[in-house]
């Protein structure tokens, strides 16, 4: 494989990994801080993508669609947390698994009722619809670079939020010891709502920015959910740093695997997960 091809696959792997990180970060935060496992996380990704499709058709601009869609998904997240999830923090994981599995069905039907069952393409913004030439014959799409850039910005934003702001401090305190934090007068319910909405928002925005590349189809939630789970298991539940590293790892392994060993490419990531589990059953990083 020559350098240009290697660079392309590297960039692809990183872009895929960063996208996975946006999903995994939300999932791992929601689990680390509230102890809720959310199987419907992939559904938020799908809803975000469909929102991007319909809103960009309405507004004529993907950028505006993403902004509005992000706001809508945050509201959806807050509403879901208030109506359902808040009552399940103290329940068994089994109940949470079932509840969120039921939600997957409900979201699928909502999507079917609102937007139908067809596959759609989303127009890439004209401004970004060109490629940087790498060699005489190969070039790399700028949109993918922009996608990675957005994910990196969001990752940095998340890091700054959690470690450098007061809100982040309260979030970390709430994860460490919920009751003490509440006893200190901090409104932990609001914190939980914010974290949940953040997780939902990240997933939806991931779906929105991925839509022009992956197109919009009904089962996109399920396939991304399983990758997300693998990332979280490898990285360690509750650790955002672990999610980042393992997302990049999974992205690169999957991408290079498809190119180098296509026959077993589908299983490669799971073998990686199995290997990690043998040595570190709780993932690479602790909370």
């Amino acid at each position, binding site marked *: 494989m020559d350098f240009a091809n290697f660079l392309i696959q590297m960039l692809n792997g990183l872009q895929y990994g960063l996208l996975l990180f946006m999903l995994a970060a939300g999932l791992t935060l929601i689990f680390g801080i509230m102890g809720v496992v959310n199987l419907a996380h992939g559904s938020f990704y799908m809803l975000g993508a469909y929102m991007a499709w319909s809103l960009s058709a309405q507004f004529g601009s993907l950028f505006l669609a993403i902004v509005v869609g992000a706001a809508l998904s945050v509201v959806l997240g807050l509403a879901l947390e208030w109506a359902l999830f808040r009552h399940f923090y103290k329940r068994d994981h089994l109940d949470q698994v*079932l509840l969120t599995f039921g939600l997957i069905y409900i979201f699928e039907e909502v999507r079917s009722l609102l937007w139908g069952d067809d596959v759609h393409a989303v127009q890439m913004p004209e401004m970004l619809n060109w490629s940087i030439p790498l060699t005489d014959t190969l070039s790399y799409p700028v949109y993918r670079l922009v996608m990675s850039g957005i994910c990196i910005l969001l990752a940095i934003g998340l890091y700054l939020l959690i470690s450098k702001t007061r809100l982040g401090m309260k979030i970390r305190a709430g994860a460490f010891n919920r009751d003490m934090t509440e006893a200190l007068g901090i409104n932990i319910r609001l914190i939980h709502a914010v974290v949940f909405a953040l997780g939902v928002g990240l997933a939806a925005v991931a779906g929105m920015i991925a839509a022009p590349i992956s197109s919009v189809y009904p089962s996109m939630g399920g396939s991304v959910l399983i990758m997300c789970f693998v990332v979280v298991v490898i990285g360690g539940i509750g650790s955002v740093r672990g999610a980042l590293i393992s997302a990049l790892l999974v992205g690169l392994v999957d991408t290079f695997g498809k190119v180098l060993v296509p026959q077993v490419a589908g299983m490669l990531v799971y073998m990686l997960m199995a290997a990690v589990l043998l040595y570190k059953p709780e993932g690479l990083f602790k909370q």
Partner: protein
Amino acid sequence: MSAASAHLEQLPRSLQFTLGLGAVALAAFPFIGVDGQDYYIQMLSQMMILAIFAMSLDLLQGVTGLVSLGHAAFFGLAGYALAFITPDTGPVSLWWSLPLAAAGAGLAALVIGFFVVRTHGIYFIMVTMAFAQMIFYLFFDNKSLGGSDGIYVNFKPSTAIAGLTGGAELFDLENKVTFFYFTFVVLLLVYGFLRRVLFSPFGRTLAGIRVNEHRMRAMGYGTMWYKLTAFTLAGALAGVAGYLWAAQTGFVNPELLGFHLSAHAIMMVILGGMGNFAGAIVGAFAFEYLMHVFKDVTKHWQLLMGSFIVLVVILAPRGLLGLGQSLLNRMGNRAATAPAGAEERKQHV
């Protein structure tokens, strides 16, 4: 509801009696002449097969407390095994293909279990789902294994034993009623076996692991090996169900391996009531029946199914049998439940 409070192991006498009546009704069904008899017999056979599947999951979930989102993998693998070993020209013998398929599923469970039982809690749920999806994609992506289209099982297994019957079938599985009764017998055998296991030292250890694994380890039990054995046994029994499903429908496809079926099985076990294998049977029948009803009502049945699941989780966490038990408790049936209560109290000492 926590997995530890599955006090449904011994049901009150009146519930046991009702369930027994249900079993008798089921056995007598083919003799009642109803319109569309054939269709209902097939539907009930399918429900019984799923009941066996649900019971195998109950061993893992209700007894040992391990929530596996990947149990359908073993169900599907045994079904595929039957599809692969049935030649194009004629049927394969039931007597060695069923044990082989179940053993194959059990072997897969042993291998996967080896990686998976060392994880706990939420990790266990996630990795079982991940491994099962891996198997799903293995079959889905590979044309040689049937791909997304699946494989046909050309002939139902033959029950002839070469030496004894010289080519004639002992009982003809192509006949729907015979197949119904065969499945019924397997259901009863699996139920009886699992009840024996439940109250054996092995079963009591599994229940102890569910209640408090650390305490069991402190008492010297090698809990990982017990969990692995339970996982393997549950996988093999799921294989029995999967084999029967493939034999009945004559067709296997990757959906039989997917996490949707696994989640349905979890739902069945919870709906009926965990820890008591009769609950798994009740749950399987109820869930399948409801799915038929919802699918008949509207194209958007998933909305109804999803809402139903959500409602059950919120309102009836101990399932139908649990509801039945609480109802009887409130009606003053305390004498029947006292022995069960005393038994549970002894365990907590």
